[in-house]
């Protein structure tokens, strides 16, 4: 069961590349693998925890005020992540900057709370949070691997191709847009080929 769920989170319902949710942090923090991985894991933690709590209180909160309730729960976990990061990973915290508190307004988290956790039991919601978070993390890693290799000729801080000068534009803003456009086009091309549509 976990395997099927994992496939759903990473491939068929990939939050960034298929559902196109949470674009802002995914483009802004994919400048290096370290940042991408840090951001992905932070989002996964918040997503799993908030899904559990929301699923626990789903029968208590009145329907009309559910969105503000969800936001408070999410904001609480984001604050926890912020404090932990400041204490143990100060360098990563400086790199990610305002994008850590901005996890609050990440559409993936509110979207999963609304569409899944508010309707399902705790265990299922937790699993959904974990696989969706992993889907987010893998696509963020994919984007950041491409951008780090092309943009700074490094991978995880180690030199990649010796004697090749990096295309700095890929770690700047335009490169983010170009990378995600290419990745999405490739995915769509493969999808179309499977369906038998001519590209």
């Amino acid at each position, binding site marked *: 069961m976990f395997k099927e769920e994992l496939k759903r989170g990473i491939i068929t319902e990939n939050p960034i590349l298929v559902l196109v949710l949470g674009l802002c942090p995914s483009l802004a923090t994919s400048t290096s693998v370290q940042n991408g991985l840090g951001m992905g894991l932070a989002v996964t933690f918040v997503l799993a925890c908030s899904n559990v709590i929301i699923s626990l209180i789903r029968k208590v909160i009145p329907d009309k005020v559910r969105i503000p309730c969800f936001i408070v729960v999410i904001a609480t976990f984001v604050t926890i992540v912020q404090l932990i990061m400041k204490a143990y990973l100060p360098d990563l915290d400086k790199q990610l900057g305002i994008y850590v508190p901005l996890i609050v307004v990440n559409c993936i988290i509110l979207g999963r709370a609304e569409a899944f956790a508010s309707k399902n039991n705790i265990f299922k919601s937790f699993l959904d949070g974990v696989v969706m978070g992993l889907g987010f993390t893998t696509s963020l890693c994919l984007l950041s691997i491409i951008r780090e290799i092309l943009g700074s000729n490094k991978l995880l801080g180690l030199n990649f191709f010796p004697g090749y000068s990096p295309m700095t534009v890929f770690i*700047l803003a335009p490169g983010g847009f170009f990378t995600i456009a290419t990745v999405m086009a490739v995915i769509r091309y493969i999808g179309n080929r499977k369906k038998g549509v001519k590209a």
Partner: protein
Amino acid sequence: MNNFASLISISIGAVFINNFILSKFLGLCPFFGVSKKLSSATGMGLAVIFVMAIASSFTWIINKFVLIQFDVTYLQTIVFILVIAALVQLVEMALQKYSPSLYEALGIYLPLITTNCAVLGVALINTGVNTFSGKPYSFFESLLNGVMSGVGFMLALLLMAGLREKLELSDIPKTLEGLPISFITAGLMALAFLGFAGLNFFPPIGG
């Protein structure tokens, strides 16, 4: 640095150099969602300027007189998002009552703005350490930064909407249709906006 120069520097910085969409990646969802028609892009842009101006002034006041006063700045994220959500709701109700014509124009875009990261982003930037003076912005500077970031957002949104209206009519390969071609367009615009980095008349202190 004299005061007037810093105000100009903040304005140009917010509109061109640190454009919210094209260099900071804030507010991408509405940027791709509402940029299909020029008319809806105008409505969304005006609504964002309006909410950002109000949100930056209110969050500044709350940060200064409540959070810092009682030494609970770690609650910033929770407090700011609640304040913004409440403000948007209030603005919506007030508009509906006092200015139905404006409500008609902006109405449907207002609820979307609560989850727009640009609004929370501008509040966090205002209260954080900024590059111009090394201190948090003053009240007036925050308000200006809010309005000007909104103007920058609207500028990018309008440019994108104009381009996308033309793109609708052109012949695009199947794999690139829809989002991928929009991303490439946005990337090209961001590339052009990189050129504005040279506009920094008043270099930041210590940098």
